[in-house]
């Protein structure tokens, strides 16, 4: 299940108008969410609250043999209450749990102020986050600071006794102007330096004057697959351990305005290691998404595959009538020797939060390792029940089993 703090974190980006997905690191995020979702282990209870518009807290208690937990605090300089619904009985499940996320529109010129922030200057916005794991005494800290509408700096650190040198820090500078986005990072661990960038073309990345005649002219143009291409690369170099890595990638994904089947296809290549990976995710039906991944290594001829799916479930219809089929006539209509007036058919309201009751996710890879996850809501509690199954070990197939319960206010 997506953690509450992650949810709040993304709400911060939403409020400040930052597109989190316009990054090379997020190129594969849709298939990854379908193919590599984590399954819970043991019992885990989370109590979270957005106690003030700027401040969120979360307490977590878990038990996997031993009891552990974590305390986390988050401070945002922009008020977040308008951007998200924090109460767990009102949170829209698709926004919290949906794996297949349609592309967010590109914003060429980021607004200086956002209506969500209530007219505050976006460039002044910042976010502070800290989390302490007990009893491991592991501390996580994150600072996000917008310097200008297009430039954002992130600084994250982990401190723990078991880590080498007592901890690691990573600094990340992100520059996003819509059509292209660049990132540079530096890590204290091994002196790793990294640079990655993504370039968008086609679809909404093109100037609107090309799209305008197509819209006015023939509608058959609209029938074609309408989407955006993104391509990019990354390079890393560890200055202390003299190691490095490089990869190139390209993605095609349909835009939300596309009328046909939404899909996302990604191809990544690692020229040093000879790995080619192809990911494909598609919204197969109204309540179903599918994803596949094929990997092949040209040097070692090793290959792997994985498939994943998510199925959204409607709530069970509640039976109102006592006897099935024939409705009871009221006493009045019996007196008048006529049938009741036909009642207006109940239609689900447009803004009904109970549009979905839950989602079932499943994945499987070439090692016959299966992950199953069922997430949903009971009253005001969000739950997540999952298991990792290894079909190779027939004597003890259930490797992990877990239940997560989350309440937030």
């Amino acid at each position, binding site marked *: 299940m997506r953690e509450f703090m992650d949810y709040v974190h993304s709400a911060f980006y939403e409020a400040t108008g930052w597109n989190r997905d316009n990054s*090379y*690191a997020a*190129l*594969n995020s849709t298939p990854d969410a379908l193919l590599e979702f984590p399954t819970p282990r043991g019992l885990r209870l989370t109590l979270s609250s957005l106690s003030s518009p700027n401040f969120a807290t979360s307490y977590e208690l878990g038990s996997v*043999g031993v009891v552990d937990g974590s305390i986390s605090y988050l401070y945002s300089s922009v008020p977040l209450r308008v951007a998200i619904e924090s109460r767990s009985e009102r949170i829209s499940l698709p926004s919290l749990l949906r794996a297949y996320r349609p592309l967010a529109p590109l914003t060429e010129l980021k607004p200086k102020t956002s209506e969500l922030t209530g007219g505050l200057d976006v460039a002044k916005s910042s976010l502070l986050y800290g989390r302490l794991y007990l009893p491991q005494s*592991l501390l*996580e800290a*994150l600072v996000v600071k917008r310097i200008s509408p297009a430039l954002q700096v992130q600084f*994250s*650190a*982990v401190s*723990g006794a078991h*880590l080498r040198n007592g901890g*690691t*820090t*990573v600094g990340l500078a992100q520059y996003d102007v819509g059509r292209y986005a660049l990132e540079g*990072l530096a*890590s204290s*661990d*091994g002196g*790793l330096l*990294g640079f*990655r960038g993504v370039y968008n073309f086609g679809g909404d990345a093109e100037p609107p004057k090309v799209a305008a005649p197509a819209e006015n002219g023939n509608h058959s143009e609209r029938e074609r697959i309408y989407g955006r291409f993104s391509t990019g690369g*990354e*390079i*890393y170099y*560890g200055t202390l*351990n003299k*190691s*490095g*890595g*490089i*990869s190139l*990638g390209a993605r095609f994904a349909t835009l939300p305005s596309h009328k046909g089947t939404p899909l996302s296809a990604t191809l*990544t*290549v*690692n020229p*040093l*290691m*000879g*790995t080619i*990976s192809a990911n494909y995710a598609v919204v197969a039906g109204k309540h179903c998404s599918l994803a596949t991944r094929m*990997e092949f*290594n040209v*040097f*070692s001829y*090793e290959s792997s595959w994985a498939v994943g799916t998510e199925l959204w479930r409607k709530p069970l219809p509640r039976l109102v009538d006592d006897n099935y089929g024939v409705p009871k006539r009221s006493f009045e209509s019996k007196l008048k020797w006529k049938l009741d007036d036909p009642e207006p058919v109940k239609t689900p309201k447009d803004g009904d939060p109970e549009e979905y009751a839950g989602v079932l996710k499943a994945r499987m890879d070439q090692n016959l390792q299966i992950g199953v996850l069922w997430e949903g809501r009971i009253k005001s509690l969000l739950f997540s029940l999952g298991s990792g199954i290894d079909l190779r070990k027939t004597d003890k197939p259930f490797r992990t089993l877990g239940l997560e319960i989350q309440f937030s206010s």
Partner: protein
Amino acid sequence: MAFNFNWSPLTADAEFYSRARDLLTKALNKSPKPPIIVDDILVDELNLGNVPPDLEILEIGDLAEDRFRGIFKMTYSGDAYLTLKTRVQANPLNTYLHSKPSFTSPKPLAAASSLTIPISITLSEIKLSAFIILVFSKQKGLTLVFRNDPLESLKVSSTFDSIQFVRDYLQRTIEQKLRDLMMNELPAIIHRLSLQLWCPDQANKPGESPADEVDEKGVDPFISPPDDPVDANGNLLDANALSELTLQGAGDAQSLFSQKNLLRLAALTDSHRTLSLFTPGIRDVVFRAWTGHGDRSEAVTPAMAPPSLSRTHSLPTGTSTTYTFSDTSSATQGYLPSRSASQINLSSTSPGRAVGTSSRSRPGRKKKTRVVNLRRNKSQIETMSEAETESETGSDTISEGPFSEPLMTSSIPEMEDEEDSLAESLASKLHFTNEEKKPAVPLNQSPLSQPPLVSVPSEQTSSIAKALENASKKLVVDSAMPKRAQTKHDSSSDSSSVILEQAWIMKMAGEIARRVYDEKNRQNNNPSGGVWEDQEAPQEAPPTYEAAIH
């Protein structure tokens, strides 16, 4: 005396190689592997070659038909080779991310994709040079401990020999790893192999079986709980409490015993206390008294026992001396042999003391722990003369008594030095006369019925008597000696060492006084005492055993 080492029967055994391969594979995969190794390490080929190692005997501590304890110097440059197979992760970024917290991970998209490569590594031209402590008994198998880092050089050839960087890295890493294996794993492997070879019945006993079997039995006593379970305090447990314990997990697993067994054990220990002749019988237990007389001193020698065995021994000396050998490995070479040799003496005599409480001391027992110090003859070979002299003093003081700390020997005040050197010379002379005598009369059990000693010249013995007399006089004159020594020392050194030294001096003085007193008593009892009587004195109280008794 001649030893016959057979190298070929080991290699001639067809099953030996497969067994050794299995054990080595297990040992290599036991510890958590670094993230760069993604598969199990398989021992593909193992050949010990035809060239045996050169062994040089430095010391022999114990020698009998069925047991042996000695220190060797081994050099090996044979044609043994070993081939390992595994798979490694070739992407450095992948291994870099492996053990890092995900929160600060750079989250690369595809740059960390894995590429595993099968690799085969051949280790050959192994050159070893080591000091080895070898302890063998037919009952307990063979224990072999390296005192220093045995690996001198070896050649590593692998699939990636053409790449200079990889070759150098592998050479470095494997040398490091192999040193670790030699020092820590190999003794255990050899011990297990020897158990299978020489005493298969011992190998299958639960107390001495390999660790996995012990684990299976030790981890879950709830699979078949005893009929009348009690906890560690002897309180009875009913079924509910037992199920609770089961739910709580393995934390309390060790504290579950059968009440019957506890009562039996209590009766057994009580019988020792009360001098009662009745010993309650416990099934499936081998009592130490039942085993052969010759093996008794071996039975408690902890260095031979596998680590799991120390639990079954009730003697505290068993656990305390288990670590003697491994500890000494960290110290310097030249100094060590004598020290650990004397520790062998101590450890072998202390069980004698422990046994002595239950069964009264016999004169024949003391002969069992004799020292055949062949090192003296080899002293010309030793190049480090200083280390050698130090080792000598170390051995001498150790044979004196419990004040065997070498640090103190070096910091004795001058005033003491005379006494000390006197006592030392005395002790060493006693010591060596003792030694010389033992091989002369190997069959005689009682020292009292020994014929007069021929090998010791009379001048020497008379000088001993003189030295004793001198010592006694000095002691009478300097009755306040410890105090003086202390005041002398206060000015020069700090307080903590003074306290230590004071304690040492007191002990020393007491020791000397007691010895002199014994000597005088003897002389008073036998006024006609001549050469004969003088020789009796060292025989009845060999210094080594005084150390153990006090």
